[in-house]
């Protein structure tokens, strides 16, 4: 049989193979150990030496051509098989996906982290103190002696337990005692914020018996009211993420600061909305002042040497303002609808470099 006819026959078989198995049979028949082309190659040994180069070249060429034809046919068959499979396989992708429930971070925690992020950038560290306080830390050391009218400004929860002097212990009415503990425990300068739970005996539309405050304290040898204004103005603008928020400082009164001020931010009030950062109304946002000399004395610092400012701000309140949450009482109900709506996703970590919020 001449080579041309053999090639034609094998190529016809390749073309006729309609499955990988059939194609493999063709391959074995042609190129397998006992395949027809293999046999031809083997037969070369029996030929006279002068014929071998010509025929060897022809056989090899035939072998390569057949190999290529088989590979091409295999590719065709695979493509056809894949197409057939894809045509067959179906998932109803409109089915609801498997659920991977995400929890939520409470707005108080989120906003606390936002506040910490901003003050961390200004070199403050986070300090903490106990929820149960004694009279001295919560009042006396803060220049609030017994019968001081300021004690009535904050209606206090008393506990049945007593301190070493036999005085009833209290649930702290503000985070200010952390100032005292920080200054007593360390050496100046101080630059701290102290977020935490505080307690007042009050429960109505706008008051809850427990809420959250953040205290700030900066004590060194040179910090004055200009720094107080600069620091808190920078804070407010960073926190509300608007660098054009109008701010105002008004003289006020706190027993533990002198001079004392309240800070207002500009806002627009309408019947059912409050927009921070624009408009002609003012909204009180925090109390602050220069730490009172008597407070410095109470913690053993010389007020002729050390000076600085302190401030206190309601965390829940600024959370309400920033995120438009209407009712303080709802913060503590744990209503899942509320948490899902006002809460934050676990990976929404506020940073100053990436922005505090979306």
């Amino acid at each position, binding site marked *: 049989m001449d080579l041309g006819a053999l090639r034609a026959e094998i190529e016809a078989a390749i073309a006729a193979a309609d499955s990988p198995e059939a194609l493999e049979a063709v391959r074995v028949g042609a190129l397998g150990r006992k395949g027809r082309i293999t046999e031809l190659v083997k037969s070369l040994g029996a030929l006279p030496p002068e014929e071998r180069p010509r025929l060897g070249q022809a056989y090899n060429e035939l072998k390569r051509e057949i190999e290529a034809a088989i590979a091409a046919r295999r590719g065709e068959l695979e493509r056809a098989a894949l197409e057939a499979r894809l045509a067959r396989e179906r998932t109803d992708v409109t089915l609801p996906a498997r659920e991977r429930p995400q929890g939520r971070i409470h707005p108080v925690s989120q906003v606390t982290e936002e506040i910490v992020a901003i003050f961390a950038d200004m070199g403050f560290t986070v300090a903490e103190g106990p929820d149960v306080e004694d009279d001295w830390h919560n009042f006396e050391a803060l220049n609030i002696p017994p019968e001081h009218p300021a004690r009535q400004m904050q209606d206090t*929860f008393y506990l049945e337990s007593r301190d070493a002097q036999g005085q009833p212990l209290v649930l702290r009415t503000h985070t200010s005692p952390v100032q005292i503990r920080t200054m007593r425990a360390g050496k100046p300068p101080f630059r701290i914020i102290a977020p935490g739970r505080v307690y007042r005996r009050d429960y109505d539309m706008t008051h809850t018996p427990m809420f959250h405050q953040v205290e700030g304290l900066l004590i060194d040898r040179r910090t004055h*009211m*200009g720094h107080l204004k600069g620091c808190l103005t920078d804070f407010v603008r960073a926190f509300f993420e608007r660098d054009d928020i109008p701010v105002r400082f008004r003289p*006020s009164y706190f027993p533990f600061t002198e001079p004392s001020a309240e800070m207002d931010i500009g806002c627009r009030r309408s019947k059912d909305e409050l927009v921070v950062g624009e408009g002609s109304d003012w909204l009180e946002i925090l109390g602050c002042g220069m730490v009172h*000399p008597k407070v410095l004395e109470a913690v053993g610092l010389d007020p002729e040497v050390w000076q600085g400012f302190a401030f206190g701000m309601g965390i829940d309140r600024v959370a309400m303002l920033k995120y438009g949450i209407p009712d303080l009482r709802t913060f503590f109900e744990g209503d*899942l609808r509320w948490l899902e709506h006002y809460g934050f996703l676990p990976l929404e970590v506020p940073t100053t470099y990436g922005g505090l919020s979306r």
Partner: protein
Amino acid sequence: MKFTLPWLKEHLETTATVEEIAAKLTALGLEVEEVSDPGRALAGFTVARVIEAEPHPHADRLKLCTVETKDGIRRIVCGAPNARAGLWGILATEGLVIPATGEVLKRAVIRGVESQGMLCSARELGLGDDHSGIVELDPEGLEVGMPAVRALGLEGPVFTLKLTPDRADCYGVAGIARDLAAAGLGRLRARDFRPVPSVGAPGPAIRLDFPEGQEKACPLFVGRIVRGVRNGPSPAWLRHRLEAIGVRPISALVDITNYVTFDLGRPLHVFDAAKLRGDLVIRFARPGERLLALDGREYELDPSMTVIADDTGAVSLGGIMGGESTGVTETTRDVLLEVALFDPLRTAATGRRLGIESDARTRFERGLDPELVLPATEYATRLIVELCGGEPGPAVVAGAVPPRRPPLLFRTAQLQRLAGITLPPDEIRAILEALGFGVEGGPETWRLDIPSWRQDVTSEACIVEELARLHGFDRIPPVPVERGVAVAQPSLTAEQRRRTAVRRAVAAQGLAEAVTWSFVPPAHADLFGGAPVRMENPLSSELSVLRPSLLPGLLAVAARNLARKREEGAVFELGPRFVGGRPGEQVWAVAGLRWGRAAPRHWAERERPVDALDAKADALAALAVAGVRVEAVSTAGDPPAWYHPGRAGRLVLGPGTLATFGELHPNVLRALDVEAPVVAFELDLDGLPKPKPRTGKNRPPLEALPYPPVDRDFAFLVPQDLPAQKLLEAVRGAEKRLVREVRLFDVYTGKGLPEGTKSLAVAVRLQSPERTLSEAEIEAVARKIVAAAEKTCGAKLRG
């Protein structure tokens, strides 16, 4: 504190507008809460008189009134039942805006008759809710066409201030005017404090009777009798002025005391002298002494309280409220005016103990101007004589005006040091003098005589505040705080950072963070180990003890959500729980719960209730992020009593319990009204191994073995009650060098197994650190695993 613009202008000569005054007050620290002007909307409304009222020809309920108005006689249709001839009312004419509705009054034809204006009700005028009829004015002094604002006695803009407790001097209009004048808003005008000549004999003798050392309970008491007064209604100007600030006029004498209270910030009291028996003694109350006060309530007094007494006993509570029995009435002829000083702290304590709020108490407890007692006596006497007639006797003065405090030295440098501003010496002097300080010395150090009305000024820092306040807080230039280093340092301690991470990790498990009260009902605390401490004055018994656990609060959350048909859910809290009643006896804890179905119903998931292992997973997730090596954690039984004894456990590391988890006890769920399966976990973050100090950051090198791992599955038949952990430990321990991973992939009980047994199937991955394992080595390990399981667990390999 409230006052009106005309009232202020009696103390302050000013051309400033209402807006300028309000802005300045707030800038001075006298925060303006509200400025209302009930009269502003009534410009153009005038007084009119009904001459005749006849039935409307076409309507039963309406009347046709003939009215005398500023524009002559008009016909007005009116539906008010009180419309009648002779009534003086308030007329709105065409084009005016009706305050209540904001609509412009148009010419109207009502049932075929043209109405040439409208007679208004109080509600239409924006003056209250009364809409039962049209306004009826007292005709005295009225003229037709007079502006309604004047006829109604509306004083003009009313300021409401939210004062801070230190500014006692601003609880009177005079003090407010002084601050405004000092701030450059006008010129101060003083009241007439000239002595009023006295006639006749003094009133009752007055004696201060306090134990030695307690004299400051009442250092000064002035009584002045005015004989032959007529105590009728006050004149209109006084009534209107009091009404404008929300004080009800009563009678001229009482109104005068209220007026002076608000005008000078100086509370007074008046006795009907005829009702006093004998001399007056100011003393502490006797135990059990009682007083029927002017508010109509009877109070039981105690010896901490200062009273004014006559021969019959206490007749007035010093600085707080007078007594009913000696109060003035319309028949009072001889009045005894009291102007006194009472100890602020004692007054505050008394008022608080008795629960009496009064305008007098508000002022006394903040500290009155001691040097105003005598001038105010003259001013009040003058008002009494002017308004009620009568002849004043000489004042009887007991005690003395307390001496002034010593001068305060003020160093100018403190202003720059604390406020960050400098002021020229002239300005410092001008500000302080305008505020009433006596100023000597300067320019570096000043000797300041503190005005008697500024008891709040006690230190150099106070002077800094005064100067900064008058100069303007808004004029202090803001300065950024500098950080010192260019890159911010971490602001959290390792523990704080760990807490933040745990919070987010637990939330990532699908739990929503709740924040619940630090206090719980005692019964709930009892279910969770008992209350560490009770509160003395809880708001309610429901919130009366500190929480020993976060779980009762979370269970209440679950109960509320269940009540809203949230039939599955997961919440957690990270916060303090209390182990004692003293400062520091609290720990940071995290707890979570899941209730109802493990997941909402879903086509691809098998529906099942939550179980203990859900809670275990939550606890492990928290522990892992808290830095605990969870591979080393094992599970033990013996959970706390609030868990289901057979479906809960503890996560332990060595001898220590790290966390508890499992189904909650049915009794606990019943007590907290939770009608769903609930699983929970709780752990004390403070009880975990301390986070490592963040110095060495190197991690151990990765052990990535190059040799192929081999997987073998084993199904063991074990006793029904064998804890799976025991089998897993046995398998793991059989050949520690080669067993890389053991995974329990099937638990089966029931058909086909002998009674009292279960099948546990584990997948084991083997891998040698040195070479590819041969079949023989693999078989050897498998035999060791089977032997270990049999030895420690009585496990038999299933066929």
